[in-house]
């Protein structure tokens, strides 16, 4: 398996101990799209942060492309994130004083073999807006920049934390289509968090999280194109 998570636990100390992940297991094949569904507090974001190497587990293992992420030290985690993982956030997290092209360059700047910027801009449909600043773009366009930024380094794993959470249905459809196209075009394994169960239809595997565990895993045999997803 490209991504495998075994017996993962994580708790936070905030005066009281909050167990967020309680021995979670999951797997995702290479080049597949995985969608995580679940209510708030079910551990979706924590799981994604540990898979992405921005947080550490208490116990259990996470393996991505034969790398045991949970065994990596801080410096190795930096290299892991730098080389293998792309992030897309709900609120885009673009740097406001950098133009569209420059925001994408933030990643190509540290990548060994980045994809050509113009090709990526073309792929996300923002060639004509490459010199604009984030606030001059719509929400959907900003999220497309965020996706372009994530994929320019051609990551092995694309992690999307509610990429359509802040968008209207039309923009959401556009963004999901883009993610799906990227998955098809570049074979990027993609793991996505969402509250919207309709999105699950575009994923190969759907994980339903509840109380820090995967309560249910479903495999779609037929994938629906993102543009046909109904809200």
């Amino acid at each position, binding site marked *: 398996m490209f991504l495998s998570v075994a017996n993962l636990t994580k708790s936070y100390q905030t005066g009281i101990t909050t167990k967020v992940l309680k021995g979670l297991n999951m797997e995702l094949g290479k080049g597949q799209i995985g969608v995580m569904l679940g209510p708030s507090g079910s551990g979706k*974001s924590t799981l994604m*942060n540990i898979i*992405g190497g*921005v*947080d550490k587990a208490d116990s259990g293992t996470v393996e991505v492309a034969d790398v045991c992420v949970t065994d990596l030290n801080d410096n190795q985690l*930096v*290299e*892991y*994130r*730098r*080389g293998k*993982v792309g*992030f897309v*956030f*709900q*609120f885009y*997290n673009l*740097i*406001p*004083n*950098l133009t569209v092209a*420059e925001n994408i*360059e*933030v*990643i*190509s*700047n*540290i990548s060994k073999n980045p994809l050509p910027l113009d090709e990526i801009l073309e792929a996300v449909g923002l060639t004509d807006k490459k010199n604009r*600043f*984030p*606030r001059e773009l719509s929400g959907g366009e900003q999220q497309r920049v965020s996706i372009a930024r994530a994929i320019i380094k051609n990551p092995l794993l694309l992690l999307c*934390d509610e990429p359509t959470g*802040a968008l209207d249905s039309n923009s959401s459809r556009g963004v999901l289509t883009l993610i799906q196209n990227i998955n098809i075009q570049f074979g990027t394994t993609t793991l996505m968090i969402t509250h919207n169960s309709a999105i699950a239809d575009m994923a190969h595997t759907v994980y339903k999280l509840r109380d820090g565990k995967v309560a249910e895993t479903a495999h779609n045999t037929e994938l629906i194109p993102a543009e046909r997803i109904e809200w």
Partner: protein
Amino acid sequence: MVLRKRIRRILLENKGRYIGIFILIFIGSFSFIAFKGFSGNYERLINEFAQKNMQEDVSFTGYEQIEDISSLEQETGAIIDTHKYYDVPLHHERELRLISISHKVNIPSVITGRMPKYPREILLSPNFYDTYGYEIGDTIKINDDMFEVVGTVALPNYVFPLKYINDVIPPPGFGLGVIATDDMDVFPDAVTVYTARFTDRDNVKAQVTGLYNSITQKGLMLSEWMDASANKRIRMAWATISGSKAMSVPVPTAMFLLCCLIVGLMIWRMVRSESIIIGTLYAQGYRRKELLQHYLSIPLMVSFIAGLAGSLLALPTIYPTIKLMVTLYYIVPFDKVVHSLTDIVLGALMPVIFLGLASWAVIRKELAKSPAELMKGDIQKAKVNVLERTLKLDYLSFNNKFKVREQLRSIPRLIFLLFGVMAASFMMLIGFTINNSMTTVFSSEANTSFNYSWEYSFKEAKQGTPVSGTIPFNAIRSHPEGRESIEFYLTGISTDAPYVYDLVDGKGNELSKEQVNISYLLAKRLNLSIGDRITVVNKLDGKSYYLVIDGIAQTYAGQFIYMPLSDFNELIGMPTDSYKGVFSKATIEYSPEELSGIKDLKNMVNSMDELMMPMMMVVVSLTIIASIIGVIIIYLVTSLTIEESRGSISLLKVFGYRSKEIKRLILSGSSPFVIAGFILGIPVMLISATALYRYLGEMINLALPMILNPLHAVISFTLLYAVYEFTKLSCGRKLAAIPMSDALKAGME
């Protein structure tokens, strides 16, 4: 109000920044009170001394005695007194100028001990007394007599105890001794000096001219005429007072303005980042005034405490500073320090007013928005300013683009950095430059290779061939027409022998003795070039002479014009072979009746160390203060940059940027502005120092060359840049502490 509880928390959360602001305000208030207190008290002491002890308005010596002083007093409205002085060498290369006690003008003021009551008693100047460890009751052998030390004394005409009027500083080993008039009679060669002070204190200058006219109309021949306004022994202290007064305003103002910028910026950021909270509080019924009070309380509190602390802690420094000055430099009786309540209040409240107004303007603007607008959150955060928008950076590498954009993100922050570095470099450079100028002048005088050892001045002009081995000269003390404060000697020297010391032009070529040569400093001060014409006025008789400048002597040793003796004599209407003095390589035994003075040229200036020590202390102090200011400013800017880029830093960490890369991107962008600030500081310093030098020059007739040594500029820059690098290094930890969760949670609140 429950909101008050936040103030302490906000201060603690940003303690580094508020400590920095505290120190800047502290330095501002401290320097204001210290400079004002020093100059105010010193001015009071000198004024009181001058008034109470009847400081002279003019002094003069003549070739003959004034027979009827009281009729001259009646005629001119002046109080005229006489005293005698005589220089006696002591053992260990010490020298005392014995001065007889005056009772009407320049009345001595006993500092410690008592006035001489019995024969052979002497009061010493405190510098001489302290330096050589004399005690009351000690005896000093003068010639064959033993004088008993009965105390220390200040003389109104020797506030700055210069031996010769054109000296820059008192020579080492030189002191004053005040003795009874009867005791002075044992020195038959003592010089009689007339001193006058006018009872009507208005328009003293015109009365001085009137006195001069009365004396010359009576046919009395004057050998020396010295206005108090041109007398460095009296005026030098005023230069220090004026310098201190001048420093009391710009230094604190610069500090307060810098604080206004940074505090305004911080409050602006805080108010903006809390716009949702403010909007919510508004919506729930808080009044604008209450919120304004809340956000104003932080700058007001910090500025008041810092201002008050700076003002109060500066007060105890005034007494020892003045005590040191009155003992070593400008000797006046010193009893107590008077503190000005107005100054203390100003020192404490000025920063409050400065910062309060700046913060009020910033907060008021934000609070003018509607609650709904405020609750939308910090939408302005994403705003891109005109500069960022218009700048095309496509040709730059990503790293450089990022650095430029990070810097341009906050123009006030950039201005603060630029001005802050300018202020710090200004202080460092001016310290070095003043030190440099003084060193150049004194080393130039000290290192001048004199061709003669002695200068003998005669009471009356001589004619014919002088004693073998001597070179005759004639001189008048003069000033350029219309500029009486610039005083110099116009000297005619025989062309048959070398000058007193060799003079070369700017290219190193020896200047001809057959022409009119002006010293570089005087030419610069009068803005004269070769071929220019100058009208010179004789200070003694007011007659004018026209000269054309033929050469400029590249020397920093004094202000003078040299010309051939015969031409000089022809110019002033004397026989061409007459002279009033000679330079000699060896001592010559002239009869005391013939001489009006002897100068040992080679030992005239060799007190470099004494003068340089306090100068070095000034430079070191300025450099330390400048470094502290530099550290604070750079720290404040760097920490603000980190704070403002928190989101980006966190995001870069998530993306896999290494710490070093982030540090380089976020913190190194300021380097060009630190360099620019330093470079801009140079012309600002040069302009300010030129103005200061001109001002001091007019005040004490001293021309200082403006020399910025490139080595010192390099040292200043290296120091400043080291401070910058050090601050970056220490801020690196701050940067490392920013968690990745900031980016992951962005927009969630």
